[in-house]
């Protein structure tokens, strides 16, 4: 589904991606983990054909996003870091717009409506999106991203703002999608979620995948059998020592009192 080799992305002097490799097969749920500014959002934007890589080879769902952005966008459901919506449209109008521009058939109304009920959106259909809460906007973005049943889901911190119930539903949607043969890439900062859901995890640091594999493989890589993903993550991003030191200093400050 995804085949990326040596992706580089420069923003002016900033190198956001420095040779990132990524391969995702159908039926896989791939978790992108990494510290802030590691390049997760940049990667997902490039996969969704919203940005072009400065260099590198890339195929998404059988197309090169640089040449066939539209073909890629047809096959991808993308949920951005912060929901990208027309704030002056109502959710109903927005769904109508998305379904129409994607040329979907009438069946989509049923599908969207099932999801909307699951997310408990019922009383918000005719309120301008700008007036809705963070989590409600996120739900709308998610429904809009999956309503065309794309083969590939790209989710950038999709649990952002969702309450526990909705988070549970989203996880179900994602694993059903993978079981049906679709591919999923999502970024997250919540280790437990990644640990519980992903079939494979990639740890990104400074624009590169520094470690990759199933939970077991990652554990083996770090040489510690019982460690949690969080510990692994800190070790692999070489922030273990920094965190220990910082925590020590914070505790010292706290013991001195306010």
């Amino acid at each position, binding site marked *: 589904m995804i085949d990326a080799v040596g992706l580089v992305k420069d923003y002016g002097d900033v190198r956001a991606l420095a040779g990132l490799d990524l391969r995702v097969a159908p039926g896989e749920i791939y978790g992108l983990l990494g510290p802030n500014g590691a390049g997760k959002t940049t990667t997902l934007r490039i996969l969704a054909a919203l940005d072009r890589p400065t260099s590198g080879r890339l195929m998404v769902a059988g197309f090169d996003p640089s040449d066939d952005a539209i073909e890629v966008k047809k096959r991808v459901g993308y949920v951005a870091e912060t929901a990208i919506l027309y704030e002056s449209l109502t959710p109903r109008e927005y769904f109508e717009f998305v379904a129409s521009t994607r040329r979907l058939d009438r069946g*989509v109304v049923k599908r969207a409506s099932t999801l909307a009920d699951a997310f408990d959106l019922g009383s918000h259909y005719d309120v301008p999106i*700008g007036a809705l809460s963070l989590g409600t906007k996120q739900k709308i973005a998610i429904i809009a991203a999956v309503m065309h049943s794309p083969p590939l889901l790209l989710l950038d911190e999709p649990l952002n703002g969702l309450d526990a119930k909705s988070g549970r539903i989203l996880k179900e949607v994602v694993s059903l999608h993978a079981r049906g043969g679709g591919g999923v890439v999502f970024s997250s900062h919540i280790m437990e979620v990644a640990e519980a859901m992903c079939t494979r995890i990639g740890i990104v640091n400074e624009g590169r995948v520094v470690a990759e594999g199933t939970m077991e493989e990652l554990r083996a890589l770090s040489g510690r059998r019982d460690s949690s993903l969080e510990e692994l993550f800190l070790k692999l991003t070489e922030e273990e020592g920094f965190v220990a030191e910082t925590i020590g200093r914070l505790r010292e400050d706290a013991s001195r009192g306010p």
Partner: protein
Amino acid sequence: MDLEEEWRASAVAYAELVYRPIIRSGYTSRDIGSIKAVRRALTGASVNKAIFALFTMAGALFPFVIYATGLERLSLTVTVSLSILLVFGYVVLYCVQVLPSFVSSGSFAPLSTMPLSSLEVSRVAGLTLWRTLDYILLASLISQIGAVAFFTNSPAGTLLVAFASVLSTLLAVGLSFWLTSVFQRRLEGGSLTGIRAFFRPLYFVLWGLGVMSAVFLFSLISYVAPPLQAALTDPASPAGFVLSLILPFSAGIVSTHFQGEPVSRLSLTLGLAGLVVAGLATAAATRVTLGVVTGVVLPTRELSSHAAKTGLKFRIHGPLFAYVLKDLRVSSRNPATGFLFALPFFEIIAVVVPLTAASVVKMSVVLVGAQVGGGFALFVAFLLVTVEDLGVERRTALPFSDSVRTLSKVVVSAAAFLPVPVALSLVLAGKPTTFWGSEAVPALAAVSVFAACVFEVSVLKALAENGRGMAMKFAAGIGTGELLLILPAFVYAIVFVMSRDHVAALTALSVSTALELAAACFVLEPKGAIRRRVGSGPSERVVP
């Protein structure tokens, strides 16, 4: 906080106002992450303000130039009135463009979390507002005061007109501010209907006034001036009585008096009373403005109680139709573009009034009429693209091609122009013309407007990719469009001058219009795949 601190805080808030839309636009081709980008944005904003200040100055001085050169027979009363009116329109036009980002919640969010009193916060917001409008207000004031001082040679008269001019700009700012916030709060409050929707038409009229002064008061001055003059010299007539009491005209009367020309006692009394009324109105407007500013900074989120649960049903249209529908909805709810829907009305006035005045319609009048209407369409296209700059289109992962995005804007703009050819045809049908071929001009003009809009939107998009500022986009985009708009008329004129043959000239006009259309189609879709994309073809959904 003392005043100096507040002034510095307002600089931060102002930079935020300028930079935020650029960040939000999601144009990532340039490095927007460095501090240089903020400075670039600030410079761009200053250039914008300066260009608009120049326009405003031109508007303020234009009637005086006409007055001095005697191109039209204007009295000083009408001259001063029109100058103030034009500036009022310009200020409204500018405010309506920039204030939405001022009013949208979030612009002052960092400030509202600080432990500041509401008075301090609104003073900072007031100073920020001043930073947004400074060049424009200064330019208009200085040019008007200068002109009046020059022509009346009377310190008292100058002072009074300066007073009136300040009042008028304050009113313009207050009015646009209030209406913009009404518009915005309706959206953020979660309701698209309700009592506030009532004010929307008022808002459109205000907008119309702005565009009127920007686009065609210049060309209409010869129609506006004589009846205005007649009314103002006869204060006993109902129209004269009411007009003399209204701000720009009362200022005109007062300045004429101080110039030393005879003004009837009644006129002068009414004029002075008018200034007093305007002063009171401005005081009220300023209070409302400050209230709105405070409300913006310290928002009390008043969500309308959400409706009962409903089922999710929606229709599915063809992509282009859905796109146009979206553009219409978004623009009708945006304070900067809502005016679009009142446009046909203003267009018809602008185009038809000159035509009905003539007993025999000359070809040149028809051509000029079509040009004026086309100018409106270009303006609409500009606004539609500017609103889109907020960036949803660029950042969304929906699979629409560039040509659909362009075409949708063009369709809406061209549709806003359609009343013009229709009205022109109706007038032409009922009047003798110098050349039978003028009946064909409206339809040809519509084609030319379509092509011009395609080019304009394409230029605007290309400039936006490069993160260019609004003034630059305005000049280049509208300039390109105007060029295409004028070209056929220009070809007509050349051929006619050379051959003295209307038929040959009309043929040349048709050919150049057809060429423009072909070029536009090429720009839209170089590979000629336009029909495939636009028509509602078979569903291309992909099943995993």
